[in-house]
């Protein structure tokens, strides 16, 4: 019965309403029922429900954080039109470009930047 009541909070509350005595002892909400037939220890169950609710709330908050970061990521990530330079057929090194040119019978467009430490392909130049 107690196990069933745990999953039926409304019925639990109805039982508590009918109680004649109630006290909180060491964190447990003890209810004395009419006629003194039994004492329902529902504090633990309420605490369980509270923990469950908190866990669900925390879970929702965590997923909100996840969603928020993913939205930030999507809004900050460059759009296709901002990456037009990558519609060109870049090859990282001149040596590789020469090999490909010979193999594919294609011309090479080489950009040389002197006195600069960087890379036009990545953009850190």
């Amino acid at each position: 019965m107690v196990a069933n009541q745990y999953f039926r909070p409304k019925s639990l509350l109805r039982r508590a309403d009918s109680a004649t005595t109630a006290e909180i002892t060491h964190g447990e909400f003890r209810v004395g029922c009419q006629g003194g037939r039994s004492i329902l220890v529902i504090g633990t169950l309420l605490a369980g429900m509270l923990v469950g609710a908190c866990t669900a709330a925390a879970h929702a908050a965590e997923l909100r954080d996840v969603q928020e970061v993913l939205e930030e990521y999507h809004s900050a990530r460059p759009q296709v039109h901002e990456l037009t330079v990558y519609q060109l057929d870049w090859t990282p090194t001149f040596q590789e470009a020469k090999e490909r040119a010979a193999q594919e019978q294609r011309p090479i467009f080489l950009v040389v930047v002197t006195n600069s430490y960087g890379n036009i392909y990545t953009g850190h130049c």
Partner: protein
Amino acid sequence: MRGGPLSNPEIVQLLQPFIMTSWNGAASVMGPDIKGIYTQANLPKDTNVSAYVLDQWGRLIHAFQGLPGRGGNDRSDYKIEITRAIKKLNLPSTRTPQTASARPNAIPDLKASVPGFPAGVRLFLRLNNDRDPFRSGLPVVEVVPMTPDEWRNLFLPEGSAGRRIEAEALRKWLVHLYPAGIRTADQQIPFRKMTGELKLEPAGSSGESRYGLLQGAILLSKGEEGPAADAKSSFQGTLRAVLTYPRGGADVQSLRGVIDGFYNYRIRGDIPMPLRVTIESRPE
């Protein structure tokens, strides 16, 4: 130039038949292959940027100053120069140019290497400054290959309460957190000291995946310890990333995140440059 003619759709269309490549460095360390072309072209040394068109055998066909623009000896109209080069190459008889729209974006990327692990991460960095729309609109793209052992720095077993990760453990990513277009003297100095502690915590689950949230403040300094460190450029910001893990497993499946902060550019005075970085594991 990268954000100018090389991002201009008309020029991009003209350059479709070409294999693109570049070389950056001090003229004194130029290798013999590049030096041969550079010397043969013998362009005026008014600027430090030059462009060369070579045929399929690597022979020099055409050369011009690399700074875009019209007027003066140190500027070139890319459309005119590339059209000239195409005529010299007699391209239509060798190959039909592809259309820009037909070619997928060849963004720097990584191919899968070890099954079960991403090959690494890709970073898009840009200046986040409305007053500098040119550089803000042109991202730097860096890829960082990672080994399974490096990914295991970010493992998160199911049921774990989370843990702390030193910024230093992410050095391979963080070394790239500087803007484009800074002086070589500053660019050549790597970040030496990386401080900050990031929290990696479970952040719920959905379907077959669990999420982890990695977040915290980071401080990267190019200076050594002590007051002298303040004279060098630094980066200060926050990292937030979502990692996914399989249910019942602890290894990272994917990562998506953002780093926001300021690159404190200290060449002449102190110029705070806002940087926004997106980070993603590759391949998808």
